[in-house]
């Protein structure tokens, strides 16, 4: 049950170890890490803008919604902002539960909501120029599937 918005990198292993440290009631731990792809070498710059006053609020709301849908023993969202290089970690989510179905579903739900509901915007500079990344229609479709749950 934690949310962090930061410019600094994070250590995935440390975060996942902390999430389950001292606990013996977790059966399944799922993590997702988003990374900057170099797009076959075309990417020369990458910047993540966000809306500071809203970001943490939105992520806390997304996490709280996941908590109401699945019996989670722990969850975590970390999202970075600012300039990032190819290969760097952009963000992570983790969900821990007694059983794997809940942990997987919660992690996917966190990702789907975060993609379309947390105020982050990616700007990529490639050999073809700088451009704001377009939202993918598939992201809205991914989000819609949770409405029928």
């Amino acid at each position, binding site marked *: 049950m934690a949310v962090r918005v930061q410019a600094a990198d994070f250590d995935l292993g440390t975060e996942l170890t902390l999430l389950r440290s001292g606990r013996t009631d977790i059966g399944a731990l799922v993590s997702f890490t988003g990374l900057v792809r170099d797009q076959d070498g075309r990417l020369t710059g990458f910047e993540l803008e966000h*809306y500071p006053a809203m970001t943490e609020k939105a992520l806390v709301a997304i996490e709280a919604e996941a908590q109401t849908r699945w019996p989670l023993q722990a969850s975590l969202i970390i999202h970075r902002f600012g300039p990032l290089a190819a290969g760097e970690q952009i963000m992570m989510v983790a969900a821990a539960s007694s059983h794997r179905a809940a942990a997987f579903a919660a992690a996917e739900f966190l990702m789907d909501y975060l*993609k379309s509901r*947390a105020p*982050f915007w990616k700007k990529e500079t490639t050999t073809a120029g700088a451009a704001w990344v377009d939202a993918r229609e598939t992201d809205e479709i991914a989000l819609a599937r949770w409405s029928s749950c």
Partner: protein
Amino acid sequence: MTLDLLYFAWVRERIGLPGEAVETAAATVADLVDELRAREPRYALAFADMAAVRVAVDQELRDLRTPLQGAREVAFFPPMTGG
């Protein structure tokens, strides 16, 4: 009333400002957008296609029909692309 407006990503770039305070009597977000559009071409350009613009009122996602009474901060930005 005085509203703090915030612009992000290409909305910010088109308007040329990260934000500004405006004095307005707009009843809804749609009214506010109409006022801004009428100001200058750069606003008209930023708000040309409202299907491509999202709005948050006091840090909560809202839409064009949202009333502004009591609001303090209105943000305009493209669909989000985090993750």
